[in-house]
């Protein structure tokens, strides 16, 4: 496959997925609404004391963003599986890897990206000090991409099953743990006025590894799910 052919393929898949998601609306807005709502539950559960909220905010924001990303992941391949367009992807003579890569990136553009952009607003609501905002956004930008790629493996494995949703979280959540550890730690360090670049660098490593390796697992999982 020529390089321009590959670029065409990636662009076509990206454009189609983004367009479909924008037209349906709920696909990108629901995770955002979930993110906002659950974050609003925490002050109600813990109490409104600003300093206590500020202390917990990095952890809360990261855990809720992780859950929002997880919930969105279930629909990643389900639509294509149901309307049999997934078969077309598998039967293309072009490699499945770039298609899956583009699909997952499109999914991140529609879920992780808006989530990261919105996160400072929720940071304000949860009394996160201003020094933590940049770290929060950057760590979420990197981290949610990794979450999307890991989640895509689970989504591909469960796409053929009727009761996918809860099962997906069971198999994917343990794999999310390193991202959560480094993401929330970056924000905490930033709030404490410390150095947070090492954590971001670590997330960057996860980012590259996830983009390079997880499409292999996703491709295999999709073939298994379609062949039932």
């Amino acid at each position, binding site marked *: 496959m020529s390089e321009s052919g590959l670029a065409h393929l990636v662009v076509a898949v990206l454009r189609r997925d983004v367009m479909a998601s924008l037209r349906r609306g709920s696909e990108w807005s629901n995770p955002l609404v979930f993110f906002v709502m659950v974050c609003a539950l925490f002050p109600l559960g813990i109490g409104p004391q600003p300093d206590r909220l500020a202390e917990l905010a990095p952890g809360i924001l990261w855990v809720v963003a992780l859950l929002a990303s997880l919930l969105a992941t279930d629909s990643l391949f389900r639509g294509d599986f149901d309307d049999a367009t997934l078969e077309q992807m598998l039967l293309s003579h072009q490699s499945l890897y770039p298609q899956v890569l583009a699909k997952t990136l499109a999914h991140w553009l529609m879920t992780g990206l808006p989530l990261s952009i919105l996160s400072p607003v929720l940071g304000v609501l949860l009394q996160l000090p201003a020094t933590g905002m940049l770290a929060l956004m950057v760590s979420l930008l990197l981290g949610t991409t990794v979450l999307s790629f890991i989640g895509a*493996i689970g989504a591909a494995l469960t796409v053929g099953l009727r009761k996918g949703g809860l099962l997906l979280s069971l198999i994917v*959540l343990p794999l999310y743990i*390193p991202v959560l550890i480094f993401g929330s*730690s970056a924000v905490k360090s930033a709030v404490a006025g410390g150095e947070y670049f090492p954590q971001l660098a670590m997330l960057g490593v*996860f980012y590259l590894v996830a983009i390079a390796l997880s499409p292999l*697992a996703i491709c295999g*999982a999709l073939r298994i*799910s379609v062949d039932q």
Partner: protein
Amino acid sequence: MLGIGSKFLKENSALSISSTFHKWGSPRWFYQFSARLMPWLAGLSLLLLVGGAVWGLAFVPPDYKQGNSFRIIYIHVPASAVAMGAYMTMAIAGAIHLIWRMKLAAMVMKAIAPIGASLTFLALLTGAVWGKPTWGTWWVWDARITSVLILFFLYLGIIALHQAFENRDAAAKACAVLAIVGAVNIPIIYWSVEWWYSLHQPASISFTGQSTIHPTMLRPLMATLSGMYLFFGWLLLLFVRVEILDRERNTRWVQDLICGESR
């Protein structure tokens, strides 16, 4: 050649052809081979486990810091070590199944999951009970215990995924992919948790103080550890043999074997 192939397949009601691991991949051969291995494994593992436990419980002097509660080590460490090793074995079996389409590897994978999960559960439970008299609390978010907890989650995920599939072949392949992904992630997870723990190091004594252990205390541990590995091997054979019977129930050799026994 073709005729033989299809006849063979129909006799085994098999859907995939194992090629490279011709002999090792043959369930029938494995069933007969493992039958000879089983008594040795059972005897030796029980000898080592019981012997090591008695030695560790009754004959070794107590730890000067922890007192007698340290004797839990002789079951806790073997359980967690074998649980970890079992996950890696499962991932390797999964890779073999995916690459060479070896049916036996799928059976091994399926059999390991419940055993590994039980051992991880034991490791968690004994760790918690060990913590109570030693540090005064049932649960500490210590790096090692947290890692074992995550390993337990990984096992539960594999079991849940396997149960969700109606089709046996698809279940095996999906679990193989998940096991491999998990095995790639385990070092990253362990290392992350280790790093996370070092950030939040509490003032209390760390669980990871086993390097100071006295050699006389180490010898029973070696016995129970190897005993646990052998016991795991024996259990694994038990489960795999049942799985072979179940999958090959329409074949002549299994039917002759079972009904020959009853006569």
